[in-house]
């Protein structure tokens, strides 16, 4: 807090105090909101709640009530810190009223009793919640209950550098047709490897910079698993699925990429900043990222003429078994068990107002995320934005999400560990798959189906 802020807080507190003395009816509420993985462009995760509080206060005033809501927001730029803080705070009963986190936390946190099912507090049959995309609501549900309200949606995107594609002989039309070819499965990940290899051979891009996937663990890598035919959850039983063949295909793909020299063996763990700068300076042949990166590149990293420089598509299929795909990783507003039922009801009301298409669109456009509901997609403000509208059309229909299963974390870590091992060459692809299999088998037993 800054001194001015402290001063204003003191003034506010004093003001509130005198107000309470004057009118006994005045109701004061403090609602705390914590958001993880939030940088400057996504400040609306908290600010939307503040806006909602303003609306609620005005509504109360019209009813003749005197309502004061103080929203205390705190954001973390990373996930590990944030999740640790939420978990420990919940344990000490000081968790915030509203948690903005990834939907995959619903599994463990609902088991631990950190969360209240939000459907007990809001009406999904009433506007604006009834127009939220059903698949997103499903992502915010777990074990038969709806736990959260989707805060944003995104798709993960495969990017190609247009100038570099041209340099190896692609015509404008061919480049324009690329996304469709990817979608149909005509253009696979291996075609991509050959193309970027060609770019490197012809000196268009530097060695080892042909392909620049995500630098750290994240949902992105599960897309490549799906590209090789993998499924994360069995549709019938709802159990997790470990698909040996798909995983082998995926590990092999990255091992091959390293062997071809289009990505360094030590690539994982590169600093995000380096990656962003590389993208903004058009140094890579192909890369994958998220829709929200668009906002960062154009606003923070000074990337100009994005649409002239970059072609984008789904993540290509890896082989005949797989499909082109994209994973959406919606953040959700969650209600914690901290505080009274009254506090929770108020927080839920704030979240509902914050899910108003106009308020949510502020976040979508500011941070490059996608609309959470059909009404929001219709807003001119949203629809006129080229990036969000194009990605909504091209990618969103083909997205799926990672499972909310509390056990998925183990599988997730094991998959990434194996990937690292195969990628850095510290073990063979077969051994890496075997190690991952042993790990999930010993940790999850019957809860995972091995194929």
């Amino acid at each position, binding site marked *: 807090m800054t001194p001015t802020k402290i001063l204003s807080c003191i003034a506010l507190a004093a003001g509130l105090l005198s107000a309470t003395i004057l009118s006994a009816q005045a109701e004061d509420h403090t609602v705390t909101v914590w958001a993880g993985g939030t940088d400057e462009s996504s400040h609306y995760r908290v600010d939307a709640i503040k806006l909602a509080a303003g609306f609620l206060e005005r509504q109360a005033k019209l009813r003749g009530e005197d309502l004061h809501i103080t929203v205390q927001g705190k954001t973390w730029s990373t996930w590990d810190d944030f999740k640790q803080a939420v978990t420990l705070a919940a344990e000490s009963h000081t968790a915030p009223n509203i948690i903005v*986190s990834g939907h995959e936390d619903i599994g463990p946190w609902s*088991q631990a009793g950190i969360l209240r099912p939000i459907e007990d507090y*809001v009406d999904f049959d009433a506007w604006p919640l009834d127009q939220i995309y059903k698949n997103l609501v499903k992502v915010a549900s777990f*074990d*038969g*209950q709806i736990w959260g309200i989707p805060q944003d949606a995104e798709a993960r995107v495969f990017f190609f550098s247009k100038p570099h594609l041209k340099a190896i002989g692609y015509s404008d039309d061919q480049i324009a047709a690329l996304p469709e070819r990817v979608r149909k499965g005509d253009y696979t990940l291996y075609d991509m490897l050959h193309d970027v290899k060609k770019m490197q051979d012809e000196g268009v891009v530097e060695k080892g910079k042909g392909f620049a996937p995500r630098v750290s663990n994240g949902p992105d890598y599960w897309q490549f698993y799906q590209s090789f035919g993998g499924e994360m959850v069995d549709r019938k039983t709802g159990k997790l699925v470990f698909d040996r063949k798909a995983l082998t295909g995926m590990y092999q793909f990255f091992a091959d990429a390293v062997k071809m020299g289009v990505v360094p063996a*030590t690539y*994982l763990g590169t600093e995000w900043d380096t990656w962003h700068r590389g993208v903004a300076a058009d140094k890579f042949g192909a890369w994958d990222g998220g829709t929200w990166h668009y906002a960062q590149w154009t606003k923070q990293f000074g990337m100009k003429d994005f649409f002239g420089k970059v072609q984008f598509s789904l993540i290509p299929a890896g082989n005949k078994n797989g499909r082109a795909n994209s994973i959406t990783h919606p953040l959700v507003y969650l209600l914690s068990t901290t505080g009274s039922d009254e506090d929770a009801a108020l927080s839920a009301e704030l979240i509902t107002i914050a899910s108003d298409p106009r308020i949510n669109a502020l976040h979508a456009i500011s941070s490059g995320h996608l609309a959470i509901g059909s009404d929001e997609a219709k807003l001119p403000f949203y629809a006129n934005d080229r990036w969000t509208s194009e990605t909504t059309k091209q990618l969103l229909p083909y997205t799926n999400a990672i499972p909310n299963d509390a056990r998925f974390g183990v599988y997730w*870590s094991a998959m990434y560990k194996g990937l690292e091992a195969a990628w850095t060459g510290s073990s063979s692809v077969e051994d890496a798959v075997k190690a991952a299999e042993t790990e999930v088998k010993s*940790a999850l037993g019957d809860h995972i189906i091995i194929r």
Partner: protein
Amino acid sequence: MAETTAALRALRPDTASRPAGGTRALEEPEATPRRRTSRLGLLMLAPTLLLLGVFFLVPAVLTGIFAFTTMSSATGISGGAYVFTANRLDALAGSGVPPETITELRTERAVVDAAGLAAAAKAGVDERFLADIKATLLGQSFAGPRDFKRALQALPNHPRRIFELKQAMEPFSHAILNTRFATRDQAAAAIRSVAPDIEPAVLDRLLSASYTGWVWTSENFVRLLTQPQTLRLCLNTVFYVAVTLGFSVAISLFLALATFYLPRRTATAFSALWLLPKITPVVLYAILWKWFTWEGGFLPILAGHLGLPAFNYMKGSVPTAWTIVIMVNGFVGASIGMILLTSALRAIPVQQLWASEVDGASRWQQVRRIILPQLKWPILFFTIYQAMSLMSSYEQIWLTTDGGPGNTTDVWALEAFRVALFDYTGNLRYGLGAAMALILVAVGLIVSLLLLRLFNFSDLVEQPRIET
């Protein structure tokens, strides 16, 4: 890490000059007559014992206990509750629980009957709303809460807020699905209310399946023993400790000797410079190294100008990453070692050196024949102590390479920290992390016992000489 020096300080002056006589001391326990306990002593010791007990010993013991549990962020730390959810019940299919019972527990029936109305009135539900319910819905039953909710919302006087509506629905509900019960007895009573003639064995099974908290297990250790990653971590840790230690000892010995022989001014300047790694806060120290070796940092730019391969040395290749990890930690170690060995050097009687000089010994001979033999024990002490510190250190690696590239520079302590407290997916496995920590403690205990034995603990605990 200042511990080393200070601990040696406490061990002096014996260490510099004399090999351990641990066995001798153990063989002749002083046949001291019984002495009166000093009450003042207890009083003076009490606050320390209290603080250490509460904020050191209790956490340590708790860690030992956690190591044998399945504790994670999903189970919570302080205990669980009993809850039946759809997934949990489905998972019970074919485990000896009769399917009817499962179906029974899975239903979410709501019935509008007189008893429900009475209970609702007692719970303070709005009278007009209750009158509505009685008039239109009495006698009806609903398959699930969502249907019931919609039916209630069709009534004229239904509450504006969903939360109040849900509270009004509660008395009519006959389901225990998704209800959290704080104790086993409450959960058992709830099960009996829907399935009165349940067998005790089945009830037991249901209850343990519905428990959300942690349970006892030795699985953590089995897992550590069987997973292939363990070997990799052990090898990494051994490599890291051994090489860093070698580096620190060599550099600190050189520094101590050099500053011993150099003119006073030069010596002071260098020893002051080498104090910096020790006293700089770890966050700044780590970032300085980043700046030094990072892409766009000092070394890569310099290398670029010289036409050498320039890349992010800290994460760009395994050999450079290890080199940097070893230097980052080795410099701190050298800092401590220098301080320690310098003071040991100063304790060597200067006459011996003069004498050798008169005999025409060269500096090298002087170092080898006179100084090194006398530094044997300080060096050994430093080595063992520093090995212990390195084994459990992770901050510097965490803040620099973070175990990368891949997991090539990952070590045991860092992995324990990550498993227990720092995970991208938020899946904090306290139990497993505690088990990893416990193994570290075990190794540390063995090493420190070795240390105590080698350095003749008994001499340090000389008996008081005044009787009051």
